């Protein structure tokens, strides 16, 4: 289980920068990117340390704007 690896993809333009995903991520994978603004005018979420993602889906579950697509990396 420790080897479970997820790959989060972010639809940046859907994001409203609320940060709920950041708050629930157990592995501190995500952060709000204050260096840019999306078309809606928000600081969007970004993947800070993707290699830490365990594919738990917490971010995707809490996101009100369906910003995330999550892939699972099969570990053979």
């Amino acid at each position, binding site marked *: 289980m420790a080897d479970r690896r997820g790959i989060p993809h972010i639809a940046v333009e859907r994001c409203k920068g609320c940060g709920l995903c950041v708050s629930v991520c157990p592995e501190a994978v995500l952060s709000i990117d204050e260096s840019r603004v999306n078309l809606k005018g928000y600081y969007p979420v970004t993947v800070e340390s993707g290699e830490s993602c365990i594919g738990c889906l917490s971010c995707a579950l809490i996101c*009100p704007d369906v910003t995330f697509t999550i892939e*699972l990396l*099969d570990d053979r």
Partner: protein
Amino acid sequence: MSVIFKKTAGLTETDTHYCPGCTHGVAHRLVGEVLEELGLLGDTIGCASVGCSIFSYNYFNVDMIECSHGRAPAVATGIKRTVPGKTVFTYQGDGDLAAIGTAEIVHAAHRGEHITVIFVNNAIYGMTGGQMAPTTLSGQKATTAPTGRNAELSGMPLKMSEMIAEVPGATYVERVSLHHPKYIRKAKKAILRGFTYQLQNRGFSMVELLSTCPTGWGLAPVAALEWLGNNMIPYYPLGVLKAPEEV
């Protein structure tokens, strides 16, 4: 590599108008996912209510009808009684369902209408700007309760799920919360159960979703999640209030 989460076909491509961090969007997604997983998108008619949820007809990938404030259960009754083979649901907030629409929700449950009610309770009137709702907590500030809800003036907050569970015609009533991923998983199971009972013609089902209103509450989105957990759940306990006995 496999995709383990992606946007459901139960939602359209339209971005929601909800404020950042408002968990209405989570409620929409769960309903959309359940309808997609049950294969019902082409055979569902949804009833939008008045409040923040009014534009829900733009977001669900199903046929929808706009209903006057509080009347969605009556409209849903008319639809379901006309096309009983379709899946019919209402999507109502607490201002809509617990104030102006109390007669309609009680009597739809009372008749045992084969509909599913998605009841989003955020303890405030969101769309109109944060006025007190029947569900506003005691002491909670609102624009029409500037010093906090005063029970002597306005009564104690109404527990709709408990009330509806007492109605003989109601089959399934459960209260869930959207303030944490763990609870969101449970919420989806409840919504799935509600629609499944409708598919089985087992009568009226209602799922109450405790939801945040960061703007109306005057809290940052993450603080709103915490406020819900700390303040709403103690007064509105989670769990199944009524369910049929499984054979």
